């Protein structure tokens, strides 16, 4: 077999790997040390150039290990975008330990590569390997602040929970192998509908075990316990990436493995996912109400958003999948904007407590407005992008007569509004306790401006992304 098409397919990943190596070696040289962020950004940009080439490849690469389908196209693009913005955010993050700059960017790029492989896997073994690679790098990044006890705690906690849940997932995969004699998803799904000798109960158990692993990655209740501590302890740019990247991986796998795979095998999968969705969004939103650390608030908010996304998965239709994908894209933009603003504010205040944001509007109107836009968009208030995303989800749910799910999403947005607006309240309605100056970094400001403009434009003109997405899904 000619390997060339396969290599073409992973050309973006290869470019990223190359730049990751350069970042690692560049940190040895004292002259290059300060431009590694820029180098990494260029790496992501270069790999984005190779994406169209990759999309033109055949359906399968590496003997059916990787697949080129709408999910892989869409999610790899999202991950590239997320990675690019994370690097810009990191360049403006003052608390990064400078002496290890190269390592930091190396891990960010390596994480991107493994996430991109995970979303294009079509073989359970490949899925497991990629997810495990994502996890291992995440543990290191979470504990990156070696001198900060919260960061170390985050690393250890993430590791313990992660090791357990990927272990459970591996067990599920081994059961599947025992039942079907293969790990290739395409063969398994064909087997589900044709082979009468496979015990459905056994498949259900195996699928649920796999769900544990994926649910952990996307912080779905009851596998969410790690999220608040890890989000709080990890360096903020890493938290930003954690809140969007692994979530995208989780939902890409949920869509591929469950919506378009096991879904047809179990009649109650939709009910189970719907139940988990409502549980996840409610737990996330209710627990966020009483937090005062902004990173913890955003952690619970990201759990709640996992609930909304899972609702789209529970719908189980193409419209549901489209809603999930669009929502994830918008969620990536608004969450990165929110974390970017948190970084900018943290650089000046050296605090993550919401009460310390009092009167921020007077000192940093620009950042305060951006954070407000991001939060209101997360709350789903029109005319911001988050509204169209939520609208798509609700519309997918209502179209499939899942009105309970739609009502649950709606009511949860009201709860969520309270804690989002609480942050806005401190910034705009309170007077500052002390005056501070806001240092600005070009890269961070650039990222924030681009993200905010995108949130506005996609709120009133979602056509470009929606059109692309529906074009993709029609092909499948």
């Amino acid at each position, binding site marked *: 077999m000619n390997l060339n098409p396969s290599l073409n397919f992973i050309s973006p990943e290869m470019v990223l790997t190359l730049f990751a190596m350069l970042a690692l070696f560049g940190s040895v040289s004292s002259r290059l040390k300060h431009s590694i962020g820029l180098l990494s950004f260029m790496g992501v940009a270069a790999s984005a150039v190779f994406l169209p080439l990759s999309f033109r490849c055949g359906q399968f690469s590496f003997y059916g290990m990787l697949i080129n389908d709408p999910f892989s196209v869409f999610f790899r693009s999202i991950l590239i975008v997320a990675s690019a913005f994370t690097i810009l955010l990191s360049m403006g993050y003052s608390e990064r330990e400078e002496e290890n700059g190269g390592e930091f960017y190396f891990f960010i790029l390596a994480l991107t590569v493994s996430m991109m492989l995970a979303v294009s896997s079509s073989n359970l073994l490949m899925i497991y390997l990629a997810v495990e690679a994502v996890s291992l790098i995440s543990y290191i990044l979470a504990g990156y602040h070696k001198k900060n006890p919260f960061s170390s705690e985050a690393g250890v906690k993430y590791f313990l929970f992660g090791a357990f849940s990927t272990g459970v997932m591996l067990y599920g995969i081994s059961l599947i192998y025992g039942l079907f004699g293969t790990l290739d998803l395409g063969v398994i799904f064909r087997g589900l509908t044709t082979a009468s000798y496979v015990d459905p109960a056994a498949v259900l158990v195996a699928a649920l075990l796999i769900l544990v692993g994926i649910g952990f990655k996307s912080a779905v209740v009851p596998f969410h316990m790690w999220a608040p501590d890890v989000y709080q302890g990890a360096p903020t740019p890493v938290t930003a990436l954690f809140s969007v990247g692994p979530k995208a991986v989780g939902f890409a796998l949920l869509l591929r493995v469950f919506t378009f795979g096991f879904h047809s095998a179990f009649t109650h999968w939709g009910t189970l996912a719907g139940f988990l969705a409502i549980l996840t969004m409610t737990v996330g939103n209710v627990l966020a109400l009483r937090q005062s650390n902004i990173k913890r608030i955003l952690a619970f908010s990201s759990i709640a958003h996992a609930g909304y996304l899972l609702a789209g998965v529970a719908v189980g239709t193409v419209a549901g999948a489209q809603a999930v994908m669009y929502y994830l894209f918008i969620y990536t933009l608004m969450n990165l904007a929110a974390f970017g603003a948190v970084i900018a504010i943290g650089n000046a205040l050296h605090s993550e407590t919401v009460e310390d944001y009092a009167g921020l509007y007077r000192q940093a109107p620009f950042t305060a407005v951006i954070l407000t836009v991001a939060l209101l968009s997360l709350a789903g208030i029109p005319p911001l992008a988050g509204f169209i995303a939520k609208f798509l989800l*609700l519309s997918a749910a209502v179209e499939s007569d899942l009105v309970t799910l739609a009502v649950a999403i709606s009511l949860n947005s009201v709860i969520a509004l*309270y804690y989002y607006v609480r942050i806005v309240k401190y910034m705009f309605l309170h007077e500052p306790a002390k005056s501070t100056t806001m240092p600005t970094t070009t890269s961070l400001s650039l990222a924030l401006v681009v993200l905010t403009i995108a949130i506005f434009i996609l709120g009133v003109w979602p056509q470009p992304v929606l059109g692309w997405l529906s074009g993709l899904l029609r092909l499948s």
Partner: protein
Amino acid sequence: MFPVLSSLIFLPLLGALAILFLPREREDLSRPCALITTGTVLAVSAALIFGFDRTAPGMQFAERSLWIPQLNVWYFLGVDGISIGLVFLTALLGFLACLASNEIRDRLKEYYVLYLLLMAGMLGTFLALDLVLFYVFWEVVLIPMYFLIGIWGGPRKEYAAIKFFLYTLAGSVVMLVGILIAYFTTKPHTFNMLELAAAASNGAFDPQLQMWLFLAFYLAFAIKIPVFPFHTWLPDAHVEAPTPISVLLAGVLLKMGGYGIFRICLPIFPQGSASFATAFAVLGVINIVYGAGVAMAQSDFKKMIAYSSVSHMGFVMLGFASMNSIGFNGALLEMFNHGIITGAMFLLVGVLYKRAHTREMDKFGGLSAQTPLYAFFLTICSLASLGLPGLSGFVGEFLSLMGAYQGFPVITALSLFGLIVTAGYFLFMIQRVLLGPLNPDCRYYKDVSPLETLTLAPLVIIFVVVGFWPALVLDLQKPTLGMLLSLLGVTS
């Protein structure tokens, strides 16, 4: 053709953008900018009334283009007899309240940017004919309102602002689900309100579904109107908001709820609405009597006016309950009148507060001798508000009562009791504020300034003229309401 309706929405947005780019040192220019913008909007809306065909029941000046093809959402605007009065009311109060905003001294730039965004949202709500577009404008109103109450409001502004935001959002998210259910029930799927109404008259929604959908929309509108027991946000928001914002809250935002019932609930869910007519009547009388009773008990001037709004909105509900031409005309006219009269009342409260820095009615007394012009305005506005024949408030309330009497004589009779209490608390207020010996604290109060007269006089002129010649407004709305009634199966 010149897109008149779009210009009504986009002029304030342009104004807001212009103010946004003013340098911080020239912040003082934001007020003239906002005045020019709102003045132009008022001029355009006046021109709209002159160009409006009073005999046509359907949509006029319609603009329609595809907005989001994937979602089948259209940018669809239009104006008819139901909305034209409210559009003019919004433009008028928007301009006058902007004039009255001279009391705002802090963070001018932000104030006027948010103010103009609010204008765009309110006008958009009355003009949108696509349910999703309507929802977007409906929500767009919330954000500026939150900040306007929260930043420039009174002592309990934070509580009032978030309460307003949460209450309204809770109603509107349920409406959003309702919108989607309505969309997917019709074939072909549509968000177009006119097509939905047409589909409904062809039996697209079965009665059971109509009831549920009606309730989903009604919740959003009832919170906004506000109907008992969803009214509790109103006293907080009205009292804490700065004067010009209270004017818009009472004058325009409360009308959004009633407008929604006219535009969506009645034509699209006629059977659903009809089955709740009795509930409307009961809730209406509760609003009238309860609102009046609570207003009577207030010692805070502004709170009294706020509860009087609850009471007046009860007449609108009674008008809906009537399900006949007289009642509907009364309800719509009452909405317009209440905007004009209560807008003026809030301006008057603001005038007094600017001088006294208190709103306790017992802290005043004998002002009629000290500030005669103020006394004139306050008296005539109170009389209009309590429904004195010859002023416009009477016409709307009388028509509502007359309409409702045909179906609900007992309930209508009960609501007359509310009228008596209303007369009571307004006269009691006049007695405490204007009559009696001059309170020594009030010795140095100046009479209303020319600017304040400028904001009050147009409103007084309107309610006097409409009081004598109600056909001026009724003629605008009659053909459209006639068409609405024929949709409901009532021959007028």
